[in-house]
Every structure is written in structure tokens, then in C-alpha cells.
């Protein structure tokens, strides 16, 4: 990710930070307390050793000076719990402030993200795939919430801890500290470089894994066919191959992660050597006390932790900033959307023309024309069929009518009002659409039929009966409260389509759009539904029926044929 784009994120990051100043101030203060307490612990070992040793007084702190050894030791033992309590309070404090902030950010961003998406049209989101929008709302959002809390904890912890340790070491003996720490300074760029390589190996392994999972799910969906023809072994062979190649990658990743271990530990080992050589010399000139030498050993061990953390810290910042940028990008789409001029509520009764197109044209971009100067009228209460070859613009027409895409040329009136001036709220009371690809919520059949409304048991049963599902479901041992799985995975394609139709029919609206809604329904069931459609919709309802199979269209009063973007009757 180039730095130029990340830098634009900073203002919005700062804005988020400044919304909760108290939490951040408390967080930083308590993190300082935590680090101080950690850094003071080796100091206590140092003082105890010096007391026992009988080191010169100038190596002892003020509160232990001029005391008999036993008394000083007692005082030290009483002072130590104070350090522990400061540490305890600090640790409680940053959790209550910065960890809390992480969760607040999670809650707020989640709601804000969906809030910004929920009213958007497909056409406004064309540059994003569904998977992309979902991953922004899940993994990017997760990185952002950490960036506002826990990532700061790691960062400040490293900063404070390192500064305090350095401060104490340099105060003991600057020259010795410099000599001992030199190897660790060299380790820092190595650690950072390692982090980059590490991420690459990780991504490679993950890619393999998701590929393997995809293949498994394909194998499972094909299971019956491959069993019937004894080709399951071929699947096994391919799955084995993918599993093995993922295992190799995963091992490679794990092995390479352990490379960090020597990168961090070897410098410490070198520091020990330096300390063992220089230590006695400094001791003999009385520049340091034995206790201080021991403290040096402890600090060198403690300094390993931040080295391990740097890695984590860098990736978290990268992920968080990129995530924030990606989320902001999507949330900005809504703000950029032009406001729709809302017309008066439609007076459906007055207008006798359900749809009227005048020189209607549409193209998905520069130079593309999907629909070209269409002129047609659909009268109220008509059942009209639209057919044509693949890519002739049938679905585009449906999408325009349901306002899924906007920005057509020419005129298109819905019950006498220009479509482009109508708000989504009005459209949702006038247009009913059963899309070609059935969409169902994870939940029960009842949940999918009712959604936000309430229907009686009889209404639900009779509509399911109408689409021929009630009997089928009963036969399969299911009821209205049976769980149908995410996206209705446990229903067949035709069953899903019919459930979607039932859901639409429960909500009578003046215009019903059927976009090849029976493509997976067998022709017998289809016939049963079509013949009796008059029983469930009023004669006032206008039905626009788009179908690939012309056989279904014989029930229509008129058929329009679209070919190469031109309409004919």
C-alpha cells in the first residue's frame, strides 16, 4: 500500500481518536504505570543484592541509605508490593480504557457500515464485488477497531517499556548500556524485514487453504454424481494433492515464523558476552555495583519482549490503516449519492398506464448500449411477457423498473410519474419483484415469508400451498419453523424460487415483476402456478413477466421481444 494513500487516512483516524479523549488520556497514563512497575522489578533485585553484598551506599536509592542492612531489607520488602499494586492498577486501567475503546469502535463502526450501505443501489456499488463489501465489513472493520484501542496498547507498551528500560540502564552505566544494546539495535531492521517476508508466506498459505476449502465444497456438492459413476477417486486424488500442497505451505510458514526466535535471541546472547567481558572491569573500578550488573542481565532479558512485539505492532498498524481507508471508501459512496427529488405519492387509481417508455435507452458505460430507444406501453392489469435471447437487455429493463439501476435516457413513467423522480420508499410500495436468483435469509421458512410483517398461519399455509411447497415440505418432514440454512442451502433451486415468489405474493403491490423467476421450477409445477395466478393477485395487478423459455409466456396477454436492445411485439 503506497504511503500517499495511507496518509489521507490520518485525519479520519484523528477524528475517531478525538471523540473519546478521556479514554485515551487514562489509557496512556495507566500504560505508563504498567511499564514503570515492570521496569522497577529488576531494580528491587539489584538493591537487595547490593544490600546483601554491602556495596557502597552511592549505589542505593535514597530511602535505603543509612539504614542497618536488616532494616533496609524490611523496608524494601514493604516497598515492593507498592510497585506490584501500581502495576496491577495500570493493567486494570488500560483494559478499562483502551480495551473498552476497541469494543466501542467495533459496535459503532459495524452499525455505521451497514447504515451507509443499506439504501444504496447496486449501480452505485458496481466497482465492488459482494465478497469485497463483506470482507471490508468484517476483516477490515476488525483491524480498524483494534487500531483505535489494542494496537495503541501494544505500541505504547513498546515505547514506554523501551524508554524506561533504556533510562535505567543508561543511568547505571551509559557506556556499558550502549555496548550491550548495540546488537539489539541491529536486530530491529532484521525483525522488520522478517515481518514482510512472513506476511507473504502467510498469505500464500492462506490462499492455498481457501482454494482447498472451495474444492472440498465443490466435491461435496458433486458427491452423489461422482458416487453414481464411481469417479469419487478422481476427486480424492485432486483433494489429496491440494491438501498436501497446503500442508507444505503451512509448514513452511510455521518454520519461517520461528526464524524470529534466533533473530531476537542471538543479539541477547551477544549482549551477554559483552556484559560478561566488560562487567568485571566496570565492577573493579567501582563504576557499577554487583546488583546493577544483575539488573543488566534482567533488562537484557526483558528487552526481548518489545523485539517480539515490533513485528506484531507494524502489521497491526498497516492492517488498521488500510482497513480504515477501505471502510471510509465504501462509506463515502452514500454521501456522494445525489439526493432524489421526491414526487407526490403515486395516484395509482388515476393512471391507466402502468408503464410507459418513451425513447428509453440505457448503457452500462461509455459506448455501451443495452437498450436503444424503446417505446412501449403496459396497461394497468395487463399480464405482459418479455422475452429475448441472452444479453438482449431483459434483465436490465427489470432492473431499471425496480430502480436497481438508475440513469436511463429518455422517459419511463410508472403509473404516470417519471421513475427517476420517485424515492426508494415509494418504489417499495408500488413495485414487487421476484428476481431470477432467489435470495433467502438464514432462518426459518416463516421468518423468510414474514420478514418485518405479521401474517396469520392460514395466510402462510395458503400461499405455500399455492406455490406447491406446502405439501412438498410436509413430505420432507418440515414445517413452517424448519430452518432452511444460510441462503436456503437446504432447499432445491426450484423450491427457493417458489419460496421467493410466495414471499412476494404475500405483499400485493400494483406492479409485479417476474424476472425469469421459474427458471429452476419444473414445467408441471410452473404450469400449476401460472394457471392459477389470478387467485392470488387482484385483476388490477400488472404483471411483467420476463422469461427465457417462451413456453411460459403463453398465459400472457401480449409478448414483447427484445433483441439487440430493440423491442418488438
Amino acid at each position: 500500500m503506497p504511503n500517499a494513500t495511507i496518509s489521507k487516512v490520518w485525519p479520519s483516524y484523528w477524528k475517531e481518536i478525538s471523540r473519546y479523549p478521556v479514554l485515551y488520556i487514562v489509557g496512556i497514563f495507566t500504560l505508563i504505570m504498567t511499564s514503570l512497575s515492570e521496569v522497577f522489578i529488576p531494580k528491587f533485585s539489584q538493591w537487595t543484592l547490593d544490600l546483601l553484598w554491602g556495596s557502597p551506599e552511592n549505589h542505593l536509592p535514597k530511602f535505603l541509605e543509612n539504614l542497618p542492612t536488616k532494616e533496609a531489607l524490611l523496608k524494601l520488602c514493604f516497598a515492593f508490593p507498592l510497585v506490584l499494586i501500581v502495576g496491577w492498577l495500570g493493567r486494570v486501567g488500560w483494559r478499562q480504557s483502551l480495551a473498552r475503546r476497541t469494543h466501542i469502535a467495533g459496535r459503532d463502526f459495524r452499525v455505521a457500515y451497514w447504515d451507509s450501505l443499506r439504501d444504496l443501489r447496486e449501480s452505485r456499488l458496481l466497482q465492488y464485488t459482494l465478497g469485497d463489501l463483506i470482507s471490508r465489513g468484517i476483516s477490515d472493520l476488525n483491524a480498524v477497531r483494534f487500531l483505535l484501542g489494542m494496537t495503541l496498547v501494544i505500541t505504547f507498551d513498546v515505547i514506554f517499556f523501551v524508554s524506561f528500560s533504556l533510562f535505567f540502564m543508561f543511568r547505571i552505566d551509559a557506556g556499558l548500556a550502549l555496548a550491550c544494546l548495540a546488537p539489539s539495535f541491529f536486530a530491529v531492521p532484521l525483525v522488520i524485514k522478517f515481518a514482510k517476508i512472513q506476511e507473504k508466506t502467510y498469505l500464500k498459505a492462506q490462499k492455498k487453504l481457501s482454494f482447498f476449502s472451495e474444492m472440498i465444497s465443490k466435491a461435496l456438492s458433486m458427491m452423489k454424481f461422482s458416487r453414481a459413476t464411481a469417479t469419487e477417486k478422481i476427486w480424492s486424488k485432486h483433494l489429496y494433492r491440494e491438501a498436501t500442497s497446503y500442508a507444505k505451505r503451512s509448514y513452511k510458514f510455521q518454520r519461517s515464523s520461528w526464524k524470529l526466535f534466533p533473530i531476537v535471541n542471538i543479539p541477547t546472547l551477544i549482549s551477554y558476552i559483552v556484559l560478561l567481558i566488560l562487567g568485571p572491569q566496570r565492577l573493579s573500578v567501582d563504576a557499577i555495583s554487583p546488583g546493577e550488573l544483575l539488573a543488566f542481565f534482567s533488562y537484557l532479558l526483558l528487552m526481548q519482549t518489545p523485539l517480539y512485539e515490533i513485528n506484531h505492532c507494524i502489521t497491526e498498524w498497516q492492517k488498521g490503516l488500510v482497513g480504515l481507508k477501505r471502510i471510509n471508501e465504501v462509506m463515502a459512496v452514500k454521501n456522494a449519492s445525489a439526493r432524489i427529488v421526491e414526487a407526490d405519492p403515486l395516484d395509482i387509481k388515476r393512471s391507466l398506464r402502468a408503464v410507459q417508455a418513451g425513447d428509453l435507452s440505457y448503457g452500462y458505460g461509455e459506448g455501451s448500449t443495452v437498450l436503444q430507444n424503446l417505446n412501449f406501453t403496459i396497461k394497468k392489469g395487463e399480464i405482459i411477457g418479455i422475452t429475448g435471447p441472452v444479453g438482449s437487455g431483459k434483465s436490465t429493463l427489470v432492473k431499471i423498473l425496480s430502480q436497481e439501476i438508475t440513469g436511463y435516457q429518455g422517459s419511463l413513467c410508472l403509473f404516470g410519474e417519471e421513475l427517476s423522480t420517485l424515492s426508494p420508499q415509494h418504489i417499495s410500495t408500488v413495485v414487487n419483484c421476484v428476481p431470477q436468483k432467489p435470495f433467502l435469509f438464514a432462518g426459518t421458512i416463516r421468518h423468510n415469508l414474514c420478514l418485518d410483517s405479521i401474517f396469520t398461519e392460514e395466510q402462510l399455509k395458503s400461499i405455500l400451498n399455492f406455490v406447491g411447497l406446502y405439501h412438498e415440505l410436509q413430505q420432507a418432514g418440515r414445517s413452517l419453523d424448519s430452518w432452511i440454512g444460510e441462503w436456503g442451502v437446504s432447499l432445491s433451486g426450484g423450491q427457493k424460487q417458489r419460496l421467493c415468489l410466495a414471499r412476494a405474493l404475500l405483499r400485493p403491490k400494483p406492479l409485479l415483476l417476474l424476472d425469469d423467476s421459474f427458471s429452476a421450477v419444473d414445467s408441471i409445477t410452473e404450469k400449476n402456478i401460472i394457471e392459477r395466478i389470478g387467485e392470488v393477485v387482484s385483476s388490477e395487478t400488472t404483471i411483467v413477466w420476463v422469461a427465457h423459455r417462451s413456453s411460459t409466456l403463453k398465459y400472457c396477454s401480449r409478448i414483447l421481444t427484445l433483441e439487440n436492445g430493440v423491442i418488438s411485439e
Partner: protein
Amino acid sequence: MKSSSNQKSRRGPRYISDLDYDDNVDWLGLIKLFKTEKKPIKYFLLATLLLLGSAGFLMLSAKNLGALFGVIAQKKFGSEYILLASVFLGAEAISLIFQYYGRIIIAYSTTQVTLGTRKKLIDKINSLPVAYFDSTPMGRTLTRITADVEGLEQFFSGTLPKVLSAVVQIIAVFIAMLLSNLKLGLIVVCFTTPAIFFSVFLRVKARAVYREIKRLTAGLNAKLAENISGLTLIRLFGLSDWTLSEYRGGTNSLYRSHLKLMNLNAFVMPTIVLLCTAPLIFVFGFGGNYVLSGSLELATFVAFVRYSERILSPVRAFSQEIQVIQDALASSERIYHMLNEPPETSVLGEDGHVQQELAGKIEFSHVFASYGRPEKPILKNISFRIGSGEKVGLVGATGSGKTTTISLIPALYQIDEGVVLIDDIPLNHWHRETLRQQIGYISQDVEIFRGSLRDNLLVGRSAHHFASDQEILNVCALTGFEKTLNSLPKGLDQILLDGGKNLSVGERQLLSITRIILKNPKILILDEATSSIDPHSEKIVQEALNTASLGRTTLIIAHRLSTVTACDLILVFHDGKLIEKGTHEQLVKNDGYYAQLARTH
């Protein structure tokens, strides 16, 4: 073959039911999974030894550092100092090397166990009865092989090594302390143990909240994914406010659970740190006094300080990982259960012995079949006879019994009553694999693997059945796939992408037909689901299908009557019964159900 499934109704979505494991899971599943892998277990033991050695050397280094300070006290920096210093450095270095290789060997052995488990599960899917997949939602089976194994993998690669080395280190520190000075050692051990128990105890308490968070997060993520996919519907049905308030409700309960866990952690984690560092007071106080009274050497005192420094990080690591263990145990138990599901033979009976080439005669005689529930038959008294090489159409609404009938021919399900004869031999006498190898299946879904076109065309052929390029080219000419083949720069060696992304829908269809002819099955099943290919390609595909069915017994699952009018026999299904059979002309003349259907088309 889709079948009307008899799935049990399940309360709660997949992600919830799978996180709802019971609390009594034990280590048995995990150990059993591990036990079956002989080689990895050896490596694993080796790695454990290395980790033990590493901890031992760490203690040696601590002891030596103490001794070094003893020498320093006497201001003797001669050979003894150099020796002790070298042993200290040597011990540190060896501990490092042992730790490094120990961890890498663990990584290797656990990767092998995971791979072994994956392979076993793949084999398992292929040996389970087909009925298993009707009664188990596909999502659940999929989670077993993906998410559950991944959970296990995470445990093996992350949690297990961390917990193992933490436990080893804590024990090593305790032993070292007790050996250096029993009295002081006992004091420190006695006061550190509460910290460990406390961490285990409270972590177990946190587990319920932790699980709740996982469940709510999974639920919210699924909801978001669903809402985004359903944007159009949400707008058209005016559901936007409803979804927002639903989503907000979900996020709020997740937030509350997060805070609950945070409040718990905000108390537990600092307290663990406090309890682990507190014993230092005794080292300072008692140890210091012992030194002053001369009962403890200064060297041992220094070693004690050093030992104590090594307690905190393993205990912390231990308490952080402990809650993940439960998840891994649950995953391993679920995997273990699936591996122990009864195989196909338990449902269909022992495999038969007849292994011969098929002629293609099929006979059903008073067949009743159900998906494991004879009181609710799917097929009721089906009888028909198909001669070798005949073309038969099956007509009927969804759930009328067409697909179940077809599924019985390759012996995918058991028959409750009646008999199915293939070439006059009862189905259960047939060697199932031999029979299935001679059955071909063409549907709308064409499976194309990453690999050369040649490999993809020969997918159905058994390995010993070699096909020359000339033979392949001849068949391609027959089906019309030749045209596509010639357009590919590398011909038969052209690498196809997964799912055949570099081919059009029509080309993929032709490939699958070519593949079937190369397999040369005696019985061919055509599941002619609604195709959305353009009319021009449809015509070519239809011609290829006609070529493919020549000389084979062909069964067509018809979704539209037009495709079966030319059949030798049409079987009309209604509600699990075979209500009419005959040719198109006969059935139309009969003026029954079929004739009625034909009129409306």
C-alpha cells in the same frame, strides 16, 4: 441427482449449532486422532524431549549466573570465572537451539497430523452412504472438513507448543528451585501455585462469555454478508430500517458480551501478573535474611532471582491459551465422530461379486424405497423394464420420484421392497464399483479440474485404460468439440483453469459429453436441467447428446416434455407412483396425465 431431502429440522443456524458443544468433551478424540499417526507421534515425543532439555539448560544457565556472582564476590576473575561464564553462555545457547528445533519439529509433526486427518476425512466422504448427505446438511459436513480441521490445526500449531513449553518451563523452574534450596524453594513454589490455579479457574469461568462472543460475532458476520447480498430485496421490500435495527440489536449484545469479558480480564490478567511476581518478596525477604545469617549462599540467591524471572511469561502464556483448548477438543471430537460414522456397506449390505461388462438392461419390479423411513415411502410399487440401448424419458413434478428412481440404478440407496435387476442380475449381487464405472452422468454442472485438457477428457476412465491421442481426437470430431480444441493454442496439452473459466458454457458442455463418450458407459443418465445457453449452442449440444446416447441405454430426467417426445419409452411419475408409461404417441392417445401436460406445452 437432487433428491427431496428428509433433513431434520434444526433449530438455530449452522454457526450456532456448531459452537454449541457440550462441556464434557475430553481429550479422547484428540488423542485418538493423534494416535493413528505413527510417524508424527515419534517426532512429537522427540520435540517434547528437546523442549525439556531446553528448559533444563535454561535452569543450568540460571544456576551458573548465580555461581558467577559468587566468584565475582571473591573478586577472582581468573580461569574459574571464564569457565563459569562459558558454561552460562553455552547453556543459554544450547537451550536456544533445543527450543528452536523442538518447536520446528512440533510444527512438522502437527502439520502431518492435520494432513493425515484431512486425508482421512476425504476418504470418509467417499465411503459414507449417500443417504448420510441427505440427512446431514452440507454446511455441517463442510465445517467438519474445513473449519473443524482448521481449528485443530490452529491448536496444534499455536496452542499446543505454547502450552507444552509453558508447562515444561514452569516445572523446570520449580524443580530447579527445590534442588538449589529446599526451604526457600518450597516457599516460592507454594506461593506461585495459587497463581496457576487461579488462572486456570478464572479462565474456565471466562469460557462461557468467550464462547458467547464467538457465537455472536459469527452471527453478526453472517447477517452482514446476507444483508449485503440481499441489498436489492431489502430496498424493494422497504426493509432497510428493519435490518438496521436488527443489526444494531446484534451489535449491542456483542458489545455487552465484549464488555463482560473485558471486565473479567481486567481483573484476572493483572491479578495473575501480581500473583506471579509477588513471590519475589519472599526471595528478597527470606532469601535475604538467610544470606545474612549465612544459611544461603549469595550465588543461590542470585540464581533464585533469575529463576523467578522465568515464571511469569509461561504462566501468562498458559492462561492465555487455556480457553482455546476447549474449542480444539470439541473440534477433534466432532471430527472423530464423523470418522466413525457407519460406512456405505452398513446401509447397503456387503458388496456383491458380479464384475462383468454391462449390456444395459434395467428392470424394476415392485420397488418401494424411502430415505431410511419405510413408513414414508418416496417410491411406491415401481415396475418397468428397459431394454439394452433404449432411450427412456422420466417425466414428473419435483419430488414425484424421478430422481430417486435414477439413484437406485447405481445402488446409491437401499431398496425397502421389490427388486432392481441390471442385466437380469439383482442389484445387490453386483460389485458396486464395477457397476458404477459403467454408468455415465451428464448434467448442467460440468466439473473441470485445473490440469491439461487431455487429463480432463480422460477423467472418467480407469487408469489402466489408456487412450491414444488419435482416439481422443476422433471422439472430439464426433461431438463437435473439435472446433474448440483447434482454437486452443496447445491443443490437448492446453491447461484448463479451475471450473473451466477459460471455456464458454457451451464448450464446457461439449467437453463433458466428449468425456462421457471416452468413458464409454453402457448406461447414460442425462439430467437436463434448464439450460441458459444461447439457442445456437443449445442446438450443437443437443446434437452431441444425440451422438453420445447412440448404443447406450439412456435415461433422461426431463424438465420439459419436448426433450422426451422421441424416446422409446416415457415413464410418468406422480407422487411416488409410476402412473403412465409408453411412447409419446401412445400416451397422448391415452388422454391421461401426460396428454394433459402435453397439451399445455
